[in-house]
């Protein structure tokens, strides 16, 4: 057991720190489009420095980073408050899915533009009536010569308005059993038959979109992993390691908590034991989250699959992040509810944390079944 970074991990961190110091991300501009353009620029700089996808194999432009190094990478990004690369879905989900299921031609064609942010990717899995239930997808693709004609509706596609490619799961066999008739496609977003409508969130922003697809065309060569194999390919995408990203979120949480602690201190509120108790509780949760996340990485690295602890960190993070935002309102009072306060934004945005990327309820079902071996939920 060694809970410090190894020499090579420290070397990795120091190299990235040095690069970050020489290449500061700068301040994001206001406005969604401008902010996104900024993130694209930022990813291009990471790419040029060889830092766009550290966990990818070197042959595809990565650095063969270990899970711990990938965690360090996102921690360091968060520590300097640099933005997440624009093409995060392509880097974390799309690339690894292609590496496992794609043909050589597909890898040659798509991987580098993902890294360079030349082509942004989005994810077209969720549908309005399917929710967490992939087997209930209704979007369908019908063969038409060498092409597929796709019709349907997708939802919660973040970044769709900026994307060139959409990882789309559609039903290609109406008669097959629910899981079996699915195929995984790459849909070209640049066609009139694909309409993107922003979904406004309770924060007022539109991170997510609805996708209306009316007879869009996909050439046969854009099938990933074979016709009828979409369920398995989609699982690869879903299972893909977001652990690294999680480390960034957790550092951001810690930065927020430290800031609240500092503000409470500055106002002399730490003398109120109720405030101290609350902040102590949050620091405890935050530290346990960090430790548990690293335990999960160690288990995965050693045994090839995560242990029970690995399934818990998203749940821990999302609830702690919500509690932090509410604690800030309780401790700092009305000013934390003003529209321009980052705490007010956090209060609203954090409500999505227990919904996005698998609701807490679905996570608990998965943990109950797969980790605890309890009977299938009813």
């Amino acid at each position, binding site marked *: 057991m060694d809970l410090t970074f190894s020499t090579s991990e420290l070397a990795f961190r120091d190299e990235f720190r040095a690069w970050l110091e020489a290449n500061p991300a700068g301040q994001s501009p206001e406005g969604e489009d401008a902010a996104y353009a900024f993130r694209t620029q930022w990813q291009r700089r990471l790419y040029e420095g060889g830092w766009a996808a550290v966990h990818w194999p070197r042959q595809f432009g990565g650095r063969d980073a270990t899970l711990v190094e990938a965690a360090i990478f996102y921690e360091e990004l968060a520590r300097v408050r640099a933005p997440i690369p624009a093409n995060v879905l392509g880097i974390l989900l799309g690339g690894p899915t292609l590496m496992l299921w794609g043909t050589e031609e597909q890898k040659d064609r798509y991987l580098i533009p993902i890294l360079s942010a030349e082509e942004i990717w989005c994810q077209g899995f*969720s549908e309005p*009536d399917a*929710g*967490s*239930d992939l087997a*209930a997808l209704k979007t369908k693709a019908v063969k038409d010569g060498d092409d597929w004609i796709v019709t349907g509706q997708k*939802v*919660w596609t973040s970044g769709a308005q900026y994307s060139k490619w959409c990882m789309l799961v559609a039903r290609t066999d109406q008669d097959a059993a629910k899981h079996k008739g699915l195929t995984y496609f790459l849909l070209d977003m640049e066609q009139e038959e694909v309409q993107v409508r922003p*979904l*406004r*969130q*309770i924060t*007022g922003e539109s991170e*997510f979109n609805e996708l209306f697809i009316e007879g869009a065309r996909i050439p046969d060569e854009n099938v990933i992993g074979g016709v009828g194999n979409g369920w398995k390919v989609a699982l690869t995408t879903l299972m893909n390691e977001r652990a690294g990203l999680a480390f960034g979120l957790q550092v951001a949480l810690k930065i927020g908590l430290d800031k609240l602690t500092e503000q409470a201190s500055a106002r002399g509120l730490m003398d109120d034991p*109720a405030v101290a108790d609350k902040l102590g509780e949050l620091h405890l949760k935050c530290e346990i989250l960090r430790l548990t996340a690293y335990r999960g990485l160690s288990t995965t690295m050693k045994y090839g699959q995560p242990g029970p602890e690995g399934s818990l960190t998203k749940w821990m993070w999302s609830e702690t992040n*919500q509690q932090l935002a*509410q604690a800030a*309102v*309780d401790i700092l*009072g*009305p*000013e934390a*509810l*003003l*529209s*321009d306060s980052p705490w*007010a934004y956090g*209060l*609203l945005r954090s*409500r*999505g944390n*227990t*919904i*996005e990327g698998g*609701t*807490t*309820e679905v996570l*608990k079902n998965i943990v109950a079944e797969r980790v605890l071996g309890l009977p299938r*939920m009813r």
Partner: protein
Amino acid sequence: MNFDFTDDQHEIKRTARDLLTNRSPFERVREAAESGAYDEAAWKELTELGWAGIAISEANGGQGLGTVELVILLEELGYACAASPFLSNSMAGLMIEHAGSDEQQAKWLPGIADGTATATVAIADQGVARLVPDAEAAAVIVFVQDGAATLVERGDAEVEALETIDPTRRFARVSASGGDPLTGDVEGGIARCEAALAAEMVGIAQRAMEMSVQYAKDRQQFGTPIGAYQAVSHRCTQMLLETEGARSATYFAAWAADSNPVQLPLGAAMAKAAASDAARNVTASAIQVHGGVGFTWEADLHWLYKRAQLDAALLTSSRIQRRRIAHASAAAVTPTA
């Protein structure tokens, strides 16, 4: 012992629900929020119906009913998440009615009762009230500090508009000094305000719960309505528990205000604390039950969530209320030395 409304009170509740269902559907709430202005026509209608003066004496232009009736209206206004100066104006009315002199009452209450010269309440520390609803448009501000209150005319106060996360209500920061002192029962006035505020939050929680229950019946996942899953259905029962608990405390406080003032201070503290927690928890829970849909602007749940957060921040905080409750309870059981 009869812990139920009278027939008249039930009738007020029904009428209010019907009216607000028509006049304040969520489309109107959204319009008011996005335009940054209240619906003047709706406000006029409410005042013409006498709502604004419901708890103000007839001599001063009101209807001469009680805090219970006011609480009934406020619960419904909360249920509708109505965008209106009703809460702030009523709270000011309660303060002046219960702590003002005859002259002060005669001067201000008629305008409050008919809505032509609205008022509000500001809770200040060192001359500054950090969060005051509807101060910009108020004719007079009941400025409370260190347990004392003065009436400060709008022109004599420094009012700085604030943009909060709840755009269905106008807020401001108010600085003032001096003013015309209220020499009566200021503490009792504030306790009545707490009961009134609690009622709005009970209505908010009730609405969020009902929307969640309805959604849980309608929305299918894995081939069955999500309300058939205990993760959802038990969450809904928790909403019911908190909402009904807050309601019990709020009705008690309102009744005490009208009929048993000795129980009001503790009752009001309990109502505010319970309703703040209920409104915040239930609205957050409602978003969760709705899943991704609950996180969208169009689902309208966020108006309730945001209103709950702002309401909970008004008047005394829950933390302080809990301590008041504890110390009052300790005083009640500890033999005096």
